[in-house]
């Protein structure tokens, strides 16, 4: 492998806030692990964890204590050592219920004790998700000293100051950031991981993110050799770029699912009756979808049909799930059985400006039209759309989900469990699922937990609170000389082993 050099990577939008705990968006999450390291790390397939800053973890037999051993000699990017106090500080900050949106992932921890190079977590209850949670961005380890040295009176203010030019423990460290334009990351000379040549990672000297919002422009720049990598290649361009001998068109498996989220409530917000409250109608919607055609039309052959509400790359996805087949006759019959012989009128919200949403709904208009489901499309900007569905003021909306943690609990908690967000705002509630989920959250046996998840997935599919569509990969195009880049199913862009070959 060749060391050194600068790689320029075209992103479609810039990060907002590079604090592991208080950030909100994938724009941050997906690159955070290049800046901050975690105790454990997700494996490349995103399904389990491996050692990170901690070399090992041990669970007590009652499953209520976890002890982690820190890797010796690890340092922050400024050269200061990473101590167990930093770990305690970071985890306490991450699980503080006042801090951000992610503390729930570490909700089972009651206390963190720092020993020499040992960290002990005391738990409320056995938590099968904890290893995955410790491999998640928000549990990244920050330097207590550096953070506290940042200007500001409270945690939020300090975080703002710190995140402008954060110094973490990841393979890179921010050296220059012009918001909305570019971000330059320099190699962290103190990074603990070793490369193929036995020397410290990363291989690259600098990694530069250029912000290029327009898809075409990003591709043009890549083709012109002005950048070496580009994310979010439109799926329509995949085949073309695959054929380009100068490029590597990569489709990384993802946990991304694309579905239609239905309002399951008997009445819509405006008081009219909602045919979608009838399970038969929801099933009919599912049967009337020709997923293979959609995959061709919308994902240009790069996707695969959804079989469950969770992606097949999510841990504990049940491989025996069948999802829904394309069966317009059955769809018609179900509609008729539900009393809608003359079909129904439905409206779906779409994100304005999203070509994918448009293509998808345009195609669905056709498919559903054939069985008497007349679809009206309502394009709304994200904020309005979000406000509407959060207020349950919708009938259908396009939805997409990517896991942030290598565990099925996150997506299940959101989609299948009523909870605070009313099952992805569908209003769907199944008592059995509720019970099974509680059970699964404390079940430490992977096999038993898989069984619980199988039941949940089957129940969910039959109740059809959403319309299953397809899973899509992460399309990233790189110039031929780029090696060792990966985007794991959770979306994290991993540059630590990336190198530019001659």
């Amino acid at each position, binding site marked *: 492998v060749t060391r050194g050099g600068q790689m320029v990577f075209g992103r479609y939008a810039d990060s907002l806030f590079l604090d592991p705990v208080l950030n909100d968006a994938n724009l941050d999450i997906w690159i955070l692990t290049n800046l901050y390291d975690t105790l454990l790390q997700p494996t490349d397939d995103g399904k389990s964890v491996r050692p990170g800053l901690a070399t090992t973890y041990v669970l007590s037999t009652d499953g209520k204590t976890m002890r982690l051993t820190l890797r010796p000699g690890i340092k922050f990017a400024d050269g200061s050592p990473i101590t167990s106090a930093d770990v305690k500080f970071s985890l306490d900050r991450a699980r503080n219920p006042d801090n951000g949106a992610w503390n729930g992932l570490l909700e089972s921890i009651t206390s963190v004790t720092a020993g020499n190079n040992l960290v002990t977590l005391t738990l409320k209850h056995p938590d099968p998700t904890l290893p995955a949670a410790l491999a998640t961005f928000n549990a990244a380890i920050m330097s207590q000293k550096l953070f506290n040295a940042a200007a500001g009176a409270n945690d939020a203010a300090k975080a703002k100051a710190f995140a402008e030019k954060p110094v973490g423990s990841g393979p890179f460290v921010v050296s220059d950031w*012009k918001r*909305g334009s570019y971000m330059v990351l320099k190699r962290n000379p103190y990074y603990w991981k070793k490369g193929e040549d036995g020397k410290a990672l990363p291989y690259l000297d600098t990694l530069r993110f250029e912000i290029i*919002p327009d898809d075409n*422009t990003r591709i043009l*720049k890549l083709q012109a050799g002005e950048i070496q990598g580009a994310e979010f290649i439109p799926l329509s361009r995949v085949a073309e770029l695959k054929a380009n001998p100068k490029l590597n068109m990569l489709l990384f498996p993802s946990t991304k699912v694309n579905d239609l989220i239905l309002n399951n409530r008997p009445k819509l917000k405006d008081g009219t009756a909602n045919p979608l409250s009838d399970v038969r109608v929801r099933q009919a919607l599912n049967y009337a979808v020709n997923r293979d055609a959609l995959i061709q039309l919308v994902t240009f052959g790069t996707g695969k049909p959804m079989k469950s509400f969770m992606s097949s790359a999510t841990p504990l996805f049940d491989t025996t799930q069948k999802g829904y087949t394309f069966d317009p006759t059955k769809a018609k019959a179900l509609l008729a059985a539900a009393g809608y012989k003359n079909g129904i009128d439905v409206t779906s919200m779409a994100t304005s400006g999203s070509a994918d949403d448009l293509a998808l709904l345009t195609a669905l208009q056709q498919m559903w039209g054939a069985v008497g489901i007349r679809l009206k499309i309502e394009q709304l*900007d994200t904020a309005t759309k979000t406000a509407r569905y959060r207020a349950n003021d919708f009938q259908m909306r396009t939805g997409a989900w990517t896991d942030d943690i290598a565990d099925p609990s996150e997506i299940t908690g959101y989609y299948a469990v009523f909870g605070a967000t009313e099952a992805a705002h569908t209003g769907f509630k199944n008592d059995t699922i509720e019970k099974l989920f509680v059970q699964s959250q404390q079940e430490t046996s992977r096999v038993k937990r898989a069984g619980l998840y199988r039941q949940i997935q089957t129940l969910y599919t039959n109740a059809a609170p959403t319309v299953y569509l397809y899973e899509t990969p992460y399309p990233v195009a790189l110039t031929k000389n780029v090696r060792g880049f990966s985007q794991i199913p959770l979306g994290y862009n991993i540059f630590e082993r990336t190198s530019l070959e001659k």
Partner: protein
Amino acid sequence: MNSAYVIRRLLQIIPLFLAVMVLIFVLVHLIPGDPVSTLLGDRATPDIVARANKELGLDKPLIVQFGLFVVQLLHGNLGESINLKIPVLRLIGERLPITLFLTVYAAVLGVLMAVPLAVLAAVRRNTWVDALIRGFFQFGLSLPVFYLGLQLLTLLGARLGLFPIGGYGETFGDHLFHLFLPALTLGLNLAAVLVRTLRSSVIEVLTAEYVDFARAKGLRSGVIMTRHVLRNAMIATVTLLGLNIGALIGGAVITETVFAIPGVGRLMVDAIFSRDYPVVQGLTLVFAVLVALVFLATDLIHARLDPRAEVV
């Protein structure tokens, strides 16, 4: 043109500014959606949203929020971006120069294209040269910016490799080079508008007595064209140019997107879509003042060009 006039015009911006301030505040808060849940997306529970709103003071009654906004404004503070968590003023300070550079550049290119071609079309009016020039600009006027921009990018940038694709560079020279294509795109549109008026005013001026008088004086045709014809023909065009530059400042969104230029146009759209209230408010106010200043500048230039203009 006197300074009292300029001062009076500047003072007139104040009520305008106040009106814009009230309007924008009411408007951004009237439109459905809120910054917090937009930012947090699917995962945000009502608790989290409520907490974030409280932190940002968005739970207070609107009138109180407005009062706070005004108080902040009086301290020269436009607040802090909800999404980016940095002061709006700094954000604008970083991005506005780029947009202004692009706007001025586009205006310069537009004028450089429009003036000679409009004169040529006027002089050769109703010939194929005229038809060609007018047809060309009609084309420029009828095509959406994103299409035109992308075609230019593909052709001059990617195919011929004459210009870099997107970005804006570091130095002044870099800016000129990098921003050439976007400025050309906007400039073409601008020129298309200008050519129409300029051509007809040149035609009109050409028939003016004073042009014949200048010829009767035995002046060179170049002198006649620049001193006598263009100076007069530009008068109407300057006003139009001002109006269009005003529109350009806020309207470069699509160009900025296509050419990956981190300017305020793009910032504005992102901010509106994510309901980043402080950014929308701050930008709107800055836009309003800028546009008002451009109009003022236009009037002053107009007065410079046309001694008859009453500036009192």
